[in-house]
């Protein structure tokens, strides 16, 4: 059985590293992107199974990325990850789930599992 892939989009390298450790430990393939533009490039060849998306990022913020992703026809579930207004952004964008920072890694993993079902 193929391991589910997770794309983590966050400008904060420390967060990215931490999530990579945690998700790998949970059995996911993890790809990191530092901003929206980076993430778009990394999903050009094929969508990840789940995208974990920070909102406040330089170069291309999370909202912009989300719109472009959907404009491109991707239906990959997106989990919004933000310290402030994550739930509001989820509703506004129509994303699948939202998790507010700070969070416990297992909390995020549970959400990812849910959206994958």
């Amino acid at each position, binding site marked *: 059985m193929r391991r589910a892939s997770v794309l983590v989009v966050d400008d*904060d390298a*420390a*967060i990215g590293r931490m999530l990579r*450790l945690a998700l790998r*430990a949970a059995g996911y393939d993890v790809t990191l992107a530092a901003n929206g533009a980076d993430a778009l490039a990394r999903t050009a060849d094929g969508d990840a199974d789940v995208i974990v998306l920070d909102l406040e990022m330089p*170069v291309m913020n999370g909202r912009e990325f989300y719109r472009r992703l959907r404009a491109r026809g991707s239906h990959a579930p997106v989990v919004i990850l933000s*310290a402030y207004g994550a739930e509001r952004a989820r509703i506004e964008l129509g994303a699948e789930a939202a998790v507010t*920072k700070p969070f416990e890694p*297992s909390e995020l993993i549970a959400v990812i599992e849910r959206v994958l079902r």
Partner: protein
Amino acid sequence: MGALPAAGRLARYAAALAIVAAAIGVSVAVWHTGATNTLFLLLAGAALAAWATGRGPGLLAASVTVGTALVFRFAEWELPDVDALSIALFVVVTPVIAFITASLRESLTRAQDAEREAVRAQGIAQRTVARLRGVESITDTALSLLQLEELLHELLNRICESLGTDTASVFLVSEDGTELREYSSAGLREQLNEHPLVPIGRGFAGRVAVERRAIAVEDLHAIEVVSTLLRERMMSVMGAPLLYRDRLVGVLTAATVQRRSFSPEELRLFSLVADRMARAIDHAQLFTRMQSTSDELRAALAERDEVIARNDEIQAELTLLVEASGGLIESLDIDKMLPRILHLSSDVLQADAYAVWSVNADGSAWDMRASAGLSPEYLRQFARIAVTPDTMRLPQPLAARDVSEHDALKERLAGYRREGIRSLLALPMQIAGETTGSLTFYFRSPHEASDLELRVGGALANLAAAALNSSRLNEEERTARAEAEALNERLNFLADASPLLHESLDYEVTLNKLAQLAVPRLADWCSVIVLDENGEGRTVAVAHVDPAKVEFARELQGRYPTDPGAEHGWPQVVRTLQPQLIPEVTDDLLASLDEELVQIVRELGLRSSLVVPLIARDRAIGALSLVTADLHPPLTEADVSFAMELGRRAALAIENARLYSQLQQLFEELQAASAVKDEFLGLVSHELRTPITSVYGNARVLLQHGDLLDDEDRRDALADIERESDRLRRIIENLLILARFDRTHVLETEPVRVERLVEDVAERFRRSTPLRAVHVSAVGGLPLAEAQPTYLELVLNNLLTNADKYSPRDEPIEIDVTRGHDAIEVRVLDRGVGVLPAELTELFSPFYRSNRTRELAGGMGIGLAVCKRIIEAQGSRIWAAPRPDGGTEFGFSLPIQREE
């Protein structure tokens, strides 16, 4: 003589038979004695016959017989012998013949008499009828004439005419019933001018009056009377009492100069005439009485009609006035009413002077409201009378025949004397029983007021009262209506103006619209002056119906600016907060002005002005000026309160607009602040929660899966925990400084070797950010600076972090430490996006994030603000400047430590 009674006739025939019998006896005796003298026989026979007939033919026969006998006697003729038979025959036949002859003759005479009598009777009857008709006509005349004197004269003439008398008189019973007075005469006595009195019982008329029956006297001399008729040589007279319903009215007499016997018919007719006359007289007297009563009544009626007519006239006048009051309120005023009342008064009652008085509003005095015929001096002195117990309230008419006899008038006696007033009639003017005034008539000759005058004058007074009251009510109504209309107009204006005042928050627009609305409804000109923050007035609105004049006014204002210290106009109004009304622009007022300005004022025809302050929160914020010229009537006191209200509203509008604009500004600031706050919260959350997430997540991973991780991963995780914790610390410090340090905060400083501290910080930064090159250059021999080292480190860290965030990775960050005038200067130089001159100060505001750098990196926008506060708290300054060849210079100075 045919009228002799039958008994007389028989007696006479009997006598004749007796005589004849005696003659026969004598003849027989003579014959027997032998003395046969035929002569005597004949003579005797003739004499007998003559005597028996007693008439002309008998006398003639007797005379012929006597004559024949005498001829025979003196001629001594022998008479043939007469035998006894002859003699006897003669003796018998002669009287028989004589008797028959006499009888025949008598019968004939009688027949003739009867015929004559019949004719006469017929004539009398006809005459009687005619006379009766005459009397009827007289009666008719009497009833139609009804003028006693005329009537009687007419009747008496008719009587003279009808009865063929020379005179006729009527005596009437005097009022006391004791005398008869000859009242009227016709015929001869008509010429007499005297009308004697005849006591009842005396004289002919007196006797008729007493006997109460008609009397005829053929010869006045035969009766024992003393009558004036005798003096008139009247012979025959008849008289009849004038009785009407057994009441003696008088006596009617008729007399002739010639002796005359009045026939019973005449007497009867005369009585009849007298009866009719009595009735006529009675009627006439009754009529006269009736007529005089009627005349009196008619006069009274006429008078009453006249009064009524006048009342009607007054009523009509009043009705007219009252009616007119409805449509023509302007024309119904007391000043016009009063002369009218005076005019009516003179129509109703002739007097020498007239006045209308009224009790004044508080009932303390009588005021003469109008007068006619009184001298100006009198009016000056007596036009007002205090109401005292003596001068009364005039509950009833005062009719003073002599003004000096009335206590109530004594105070004005001197005036009356000078004025020549002797009598007066004061009629109360009452409304609902309350005396509101008086209508007074003055007379310069004594005048006794009649009932009619009192009545008519009283009515007029009441009508006048009603009229004046009506006029007063109308006046009040008119005033009230005018006030209501003015109020309505003003309310309309305010209603129009109010939404306008809140329509726009640009008060200059509002005030211009207001000024436009005010002309020409309130004045010809309207202008609004508003004071600015410095108290200088600025005309923000000028309005006139003619835009050309507005231009002119503005031009004028440019040429003649108002002196802010002026003692008049808006400067004065703004100073005193009191309105200034000039009801009339007088020459005196213009005297102080420039000649050209005076000319302009005259040309514009400015007539009145009103300036009111615009007051908001108890201070003047401007002034509203209204000026009238030719279109609008001059401004009065009545306009002041309204203008003040308008000013108050305008002030409110200005104040509202100003407050609104302040509020708007504040709101915008707050809105911005709120947005900043929202963003800050987001940023703070982000900045704090991100490192916490890393620390917390890494800790959980290490705890749960630490044994599964390789060494590198474990080490990285631990390094991240350390680094992120440090980041958290710095963020928190920054936030605490921002919260704690205000502009007045002063940091305790200590001597610091700045170049060393800079190098330490740079080294730590290099370790945490290994990909970034940081070059520090410091001049040698730098003195110590006064600084707080912990905060100084924070400042350097913030500047380095910023430089790192906003500049490309491969561009090194340079830190220069130099000596300035009396400070150590530190500059952190990058090759980043740089700053714009406009951003140079804003950069240091809390939460400021340049739009140009926002996309480059996250952050809270507090780093530079914290730097600024720390540096300033140490008594130094911080700055930013673009570098000539790109990038930014952030520098700060630190005071050099003073040598102790």
